[in-house]
Every structure is written in structure tokens, then in C-alpha cells.
């Protein structure tokens, strides 16, 4: 026992030899222990770093979409273009060719530009929506006619991308979205202080558009809100009622067993299958309108219902039986004990489950593709019967668009979507913390 770490030498007793063997084994075992621990740390680290990379990639691509390049134009509002007969009728003002004013103004700024192609390239620097911006200003204040209006209008998405550094300035001209002459014009505008990056209002106030600089998420957001309203107003009462029945009143027999297995299964059925159901039943059989938030909401209701029922049952289960028994003891009927005593105590838990279900529904895309909520819809929907898209579907549509400017818009839309999800989950967590009760 003088030197425990020394290898077994001849002449040692049996006990000493065993001890040495164990000591040698210990080293191995400790190494295995450290290794195992390390693998675990690596696994957790990998998982977290995936999350980090994902978030970083989305935010780094998307933050620039909240700013958009605008061009300052000093547009003379010529009466002979807008309202030649000086009637100041709303219809006349509305249908006037404001785009021509913008083009005229651009030609005046660059008098050296001649030739159809060059002019066309020049017009392309400014968004197609510029005319509408001027129209809105004129409609709001017809007295402007005859004066010169200084207005910031959105630049074309290619100009925007160039200034944000996403399009190369160099390289063979034929491969570039922005040609040499356009580069010269842009640099001149920039030198005159006519280009500026400002907060991208259109992104929040417009519906979808074929022009990236005019496209926004308002239409998709409204579609999502309408869809979720339908989902919430159906799935919450249905889910609570089903949970109450199954947990409190259902007799234990084959039927209720079937319902229970069924609900557990439905929770794991792929979402796209719910889309097929919606297509076959709601659209083909009941002939409900295609692409409408109503149908989307119905499909998502069926999808989130299992989540809400399962959460609701758990919440009911956590209410101690003594409450129920006390109510029954003073003469309440089972239904009264349920409605007035157990349900109010279980409601916060049910609400938490519902919010989590809604968060699931908010991010769901595949079933909405099946029921036609993928159409290109530029108008902002006004109700649950109007054709619309939803935020995740809009992300899918933009992700497929080839224009470079849609990459940052897609990422920005994802940031908005994630923000909503984070908000909903935070509310759910706070609700749980606030009302969590230990009996």
C-alpha cells in the first residue's frame, strides 16, 4: 500500500493486485465519464447553436427590409395633365395620369436622356407606385394643383438593393440588374441628396404586390387575424366543452375510450391531411368559398382542437377533488359543481392551452395551401368571406419569388411572425405563472 498508482508488480499480495487493477480501470471509467458528459454538452450546444444560426440568418437578412430607399421628386402638378377642364371633379382627379407627371419630371431632371430604351431605364428607377402617392396627395388637397409638389416616393427595388449593397456595381454589364447609365443617374441623384433610406411604411400598410417595393404584409396579416378569429371562436368553446365532458361526465366505456384514443391520434396527424379534409369537405362538399379565412379557420379549428382538449383535461385534472366534493356536499348538482366551482379554477390552464394551440395555428402553412389560400391577392381582405392569404403563406410565396428584394422582405415577414409567436407564448407563460396554484 505504499504506492497505490504503481502497476502490479510481482510479489504483491492478491488484494494489492486487485486494487491496482481497479485503479487502472478507474482511470478509464473516469475518462468515459468525462467523454459522456462532453457529448451531452456538445449535443445541447449544437441544438442551441442551430437556434442561434437560424435566428442570426433570419435577422441579418431581414432587418434591412424595414428601411426602404426613397427618391425626392419635385413634381410640378400641371393642371393640363391632371384636370384640363378645371372641373375639380373627384372622378377626374382620381383617374388622371399621375404616372405621366412622374415621367415628365424624370425627363426634366435628366434632359440628356433620349431614346426609348434609355427613357424606359430612367423611368424604372422610380417605383410604379409613385403616381399613386401623388394622386393621394392631390385628392387630399386639390389646391395643390398648379404648384410644385416636393414628395418622397419609393425607389424601384433594384435601386433599393443597389444602395443596400445586395446588387453588384461591377462585373459584366449584361449580367447586372442595374446598367451603367442607371448607375450614373443614381449616383447623381445621390449626390443631390435626393435618395434617402426611410422607414418602410408600405411594408406595413400595403397588401401583396408584384413590385417588391410596393408589397407589404397588411393583407396577409389581416387574413391571419380573420383566420385566427374564426379558429379561436370555434375551437375554444368546442375544446372546453369536449374537455369538460370527457374529464368530468363521460362514463368509462368503449365509446369514450375510442374518443380518447382518437383525440390523441388527431394531435399527431400531419397537418397537410387536415388540408385534404378541408378541400374535400368544406370546399368540394359544402361549397364554401375558396381561399377564404372562414375555411382556413375551420381547418385550423379541427387541427388545434386536440391540443386544446388535451390541455383542458389536464387543467381540469389538476383541480383537487375536494372542491368538487365540497360543492356536491352542500347540495350542488354535478353540473353546478362543474360550472360554478371546477371550471373557473381550471380556466387559466385551459386558456394557456388555447393560446399555445393558437400559436400553432398561426404558424401553420400546409393545410392553408390545400384550401387555396396561396393565390396572389393584392387587396386587403375585409371579412372572413374575402379571398386572402395568411402570414406564413405569404412567407412561402415571397420565398419563391426571384427578385432579390423579396429575400429581405421574406425575412422581415418571418421576424414579424416570430414576434407574434413570442408574444403569444410569453402571454401563455405569464398566465400560467400568474394563476398557477398549488393545492
Amino acid at each position, binding site marked *: 500500500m505504499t504506492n497505490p498508482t504503481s502497476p502490479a508488480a510481482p510479489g504483491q499480495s492478491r488484494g494489492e493486485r486487485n486494487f491496482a487493477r481497479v485503479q487502472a480501470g478507474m482511470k478509464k471509467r473516469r475518462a468515459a*465519464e468525462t467523454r*459522456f*458528459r462532453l*457529448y*451531452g*454538452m*456538445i*449535443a*445541447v450546444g449544437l*441544438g*442551441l447553436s*442551430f*437556434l442561434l444560426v*437560424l435566428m442570426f*440568418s*433570419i435577422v441579418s437578412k431581414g432587418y434591412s427590409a424595414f428601411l426602404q430607399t426613397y427618391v425626392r421628386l419635385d413634381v410640378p402638378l400641371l393642371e393640363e395633365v391632371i384636370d384640363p377642364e378645371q372641373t375639380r371633379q373627384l372622378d377626374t382627379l382620381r383617374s388622371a395620369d399621375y404616372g405621366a407627371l412622374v415621367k415628365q419630371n424624370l425627363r426634366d431632371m435628366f434632359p440628356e436622356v433620349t431614346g426609348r430604351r434609355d427613357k424606359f431605364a430612367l423611368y424604372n428607377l422610380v417605383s410604379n407606385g409613385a403616381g399613386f402617392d401623388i394622386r393621394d396627395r392631390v385628392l387630399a388637397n386639390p389646391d395643390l394643383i398648379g404648384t410644385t409638389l416636393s414628395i418622397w416616393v419609393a425607389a424601384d427595388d433594384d435601386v433599393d438593393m443597389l444602395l443596400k449593397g445586395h446588387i453588384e456595381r461591377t462585373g459584366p454589364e449584361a449580367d447586372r440588374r442595374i446598367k451603367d447609365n442607371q448607375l450614373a443617374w443614381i449616383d447623381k441623384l445621390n449626390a443631390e441628396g435626393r435618395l434617402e433610406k426611410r422607414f418602410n411604411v408600405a411594408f406595413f400598410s400595403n397588401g401583396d404586390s408584384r413590385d417588391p417595393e410596393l408589397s407589404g404584409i397588411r393583407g396577409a396579416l389581416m387574413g391571419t387575424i380573420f383566420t385566427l378569429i374564426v379558429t379561436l371562436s370555434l375551437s375554444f368553446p368546442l375544446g372546453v*366543452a*369536449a374537455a369538460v*365532458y370527457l374529464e368530468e*361526465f*363521460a362514463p368509462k366505456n368503449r365509446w369514450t375510450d*375510442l*374518443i380518447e*384514443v*382518437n*383525440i390523441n*391520434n*388527431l394531435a*399527431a*396527424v*400531419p*397537418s*397537410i*391531411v387536415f388540408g*385534404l*379534409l378541408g*378541400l*374535400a369537405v368544406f370546399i*368540394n362538399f*359544402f361549397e364554401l368559398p375558396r381561399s377564404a379565412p372562414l375555411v382556413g379557420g375551420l381547418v385550423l379549428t*379541427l387541427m388545434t382542437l386536440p391540443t386544446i*382538449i388535451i390541455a383542458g383535461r389536464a387543467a381540469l385534472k389538476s383541480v383537487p377533488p375536494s372542491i368538487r366534493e365540497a360543492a356536491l356536499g352542500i347540495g350542488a*348538482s354535478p353540473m353546478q359543481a362543474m360550472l360554478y366551482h371546477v371550471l373557473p379554477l381550471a380556466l387559466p390552464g385551459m386558456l394557456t392551452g388555447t393560446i399555445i394551440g393558437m400559436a400553432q395555428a*398561426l*404558424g*401553420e*402553412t*400546409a393545410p392553408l*395551401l*390545400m384550401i387555396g389560400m*396561396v393565390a396572389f391577392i393584392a387587396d386587403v381582405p375585409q371579412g372572413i368571406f374575402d379571398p386572402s392569404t395568411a402570414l406564413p403563406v405569404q*412567407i*412561402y410565396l415571397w*420565398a419563391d419569388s426571384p427578385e432579390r428584394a423579396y429575400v429581405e422582405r421574406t*425575412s422581415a415577414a*418571418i421576424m414579424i*411572425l*416570430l414576434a407574434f*409567436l413570442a408574444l403569444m*407564448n410569453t402571454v401563455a407563460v405569464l398566465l400560467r405563472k400568474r394563476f398557477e396554484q398549488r393545492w
Partner: protein
Amino acid sequence: MTQTPILVLLLLALSSAAFYFGRKRAFQVAGGQIRKLHSLPGYYGLYVAIWAALPALLVLGVWLSMEGSLITQMVVSTLPASVQDLGPDKLNLVVNDIRNLVVGNIVSGTPDAAMQAAADRYRELQSISKLALFGVTLAVAAIAGWLAFSRIAPHHRARNGVERIVMYVLIACSLVAILTTVGIVLSVLFESIRFFRAVPVSEFLFGLDWSPQIAMRADQAGSSGAFGAVPLFAGTLLITLIAMIIAVPIGLMSAFYLAEYASRRVRAIAKPLLEVLAGIPTVVYGFFAALTVAPFIRDSGSILGLDVASESALAAGLVMGVMIIPFVSSLSDDVINAVPQSLRDGAYGMGATRSETVRQVIFPAALPGIVGAILLAVSRAIGETMIVVMAAGLAANLTANPLEAVTTVTVQIVTLLVGDQEFDSPKTLAAFALGLMLFLVTLVLNVLALHIVRKYREQYD
């Protein structure tokens, strides 16, 4: 349609009035002494209110769902025989035209006299139906309300009546789940049967060739359309396998680490953060896979001299694996925590190190639950849609090379059903057959997994 909300509001108003009068009546029959009543006065009010509203609302619902098809049938029966003999497809077009005429939309072709007459008849029937609906529902509400009202007496068991109705409503709500399953099964089954009439089951299940394009003209090249789904199954399996290779080791190891090694603080931070991965919408993963991961894999592949397709199975599988990590880890975490502490203590008492305890005691004990968790994760991966729609290919390649583009069952369902559809071509029906396969496979996996997990839980409870 605008009158339906008015009618509903009217019914609700009627029902509120019924509540008020029912409650008042209860006081009246009791002569002001509530203890003579069987139930609280409010229950008498509720009883009358429910009877005033519920039957009328049911009538309203049935009426609205039947109205369209009944009127259409009545109009069609008045059409000239030459039109009625056109066959279902063309008749449908005619009916559509008539409906458009009614609403005032643009009609294909100029409407002839018969059509105009039919449209007029349609409009006439519609207005009759509207009036009748108003009359019938209000009459039903009034009669049922009155009957309930007249039954109010001190000995009348109003509370039991109300509670019975509430119970029926609760039962109806929990039947929605059953109806959903039935709806899913029926909707995919019927269309699949129609599909299998055109394409034999054996060809669908064992065919090696998938090109679902149906020719517009008979003489078009490649016109037949091939519906052999094996390449789709193989593609789905390949991507699922890649996802599992990522998710199972990482998920399991992090579950073991978080359950057995991590300090409370680390666990409280890392676990919710990992679960964030499960909460991110799949469309976000799809975007990430298509725009960040796939180009990265392609570029690093070309550095190594490998030829990687831009929609490689590897990219989609990798990202899907990341998405699945929290499923594996949190489900395994549950089962690991369910292993009784006595087993751990026993192992430590024998001198085992932590990792030995995990590997030789906890892992075997938790194995059934872990298998269940992995099965659930596989089912999730098979049914996952958006990641593969955005990051995997469309062409049906029968290959085991993860660097090539493959397509999956869900991708094909989406591509077959998004866009123009006609419900009599095998092309669209094929999507439902694929949906049926998907539903069946995930169902079997889920039932198996839930069974294993449940059985396992009972073992230690």
C-alpha cells in the same frame, strides 16, 4: 345572406325575452315563495330561453345547408328535356350559368329564353325560401318557447331539463373529434377509390415511375402519366432517415445531459430554449433550408469536388432533423424523469459512475419510452410538409444518394393540388391516394408509439 344575421339576432332577442318571462312566471307560480319551486327561478328562465332558441336555430342551420341544392334541383327539373339529357358535367355548367344570371355576373355565351326563365324561377324560389325561412324559424321559436313556458309549475324540474340539454351539447362537442377522423378517412378514401379505379393499386404501390402529368391531347409525348409511388416513398424515407440521424443522437444526448448532469440553472435556461426550436413555424425552416443551408452544402460540396444538387435531400433532411431535436429531447426527458430514483440510487450505491448509470441502468429502463418518442418523431418527419416543399425537389428520383434531389409524398400532394384542379383526373385524385398512405402510415406509427409509451408509464406508476 344578409338576412341570416338579422334572423339570428332576432332569435337571440326572442330567447332573451323568453328568459325574462320564464323567470317572472316562475316567481308567479310560486306565489313569491322560491322555496316552493323545484329549481332556482333562473333555471325556469333558461329552460324557456333554450327551447325558444335551440330548435329554431337547428331549423335555420338545416334549411341553409339544404336550400341551395334543393332550389337547384327544382329549377333543373323545369329545364327543357334537351338540357337535362346533357349529362352531369354539362348540366353543371348550365346550372352555373343560371346561378351567374341570378347574381348578375357575366355569363358564358348569350342566355337563351329557357335559361332566362330558369334564372327567373331560381330568383323566385330564392325569395320564397327567404320568406318561408323567416316564417318557419320564428314560428318554431314561438311554439317551442310557448310550450316550454306553459310547462312552468312549482314541481317542474327545470334545472334537470336545462342540465340534460347542456349535457347533450357537451357530448356533441366531444363528438367533433370523432367526426373529424371520420371526415378525414372518408374524404381521402372516396377520392382514393376513384383514383384506384383509374390506376391499379399494385401499380401505385410498386411502380417505379412517377410522372403524374396527364396529356391534354392523346398524341402528346409522355402522355400516359405514370403513378408508381415507390420513388416518393424512397425519397420520404431518405429525408426522414437523414433527419433522424441528426435528431436522435443530439436529442437523446441533450435529454440525458439535461436530466442527469445539468445544474438547475442550466436546465432552466437550456430546456425552454431547445423547445423554441419546436415552436418555430415550419415555413421558416423551409426558408432557412432553401436559402441558407442548401447553398452552403452545395458550395462546400463543390470545394470537396462533389456534385451536389441545389435541392439536395441532405439540406432538407438536415433542417428537418434540427426541427425534430426538441421532440426527441423533451419526450425522452419525460421518460427519463419517470425512471424511479431508486434505480439510480441503487446503481450509485454499487459504485457506478454517472455515465455508467445512464448507459446501463437508465437507458435500458427508459428504452421503450424512448422508442415511442422516436416513433412519434418519425411520424412527424414523414408528415412534415413545408420544409420539403421549399427545399426538396420535384422530380421523382429513385436514389439513395443524399446529395441528389429527391421528392416526397407531401411535396407531391402539394404540387398536385395547388393551382388549377379538376376533380376527375387521376392527377388530382393521386394526391388523395398519397394522403391516404400518409394518414395510414402516421396512424400506425402514432398508435404504436402511444401504446408503447402508455404501457411503459404504467410499469413504473
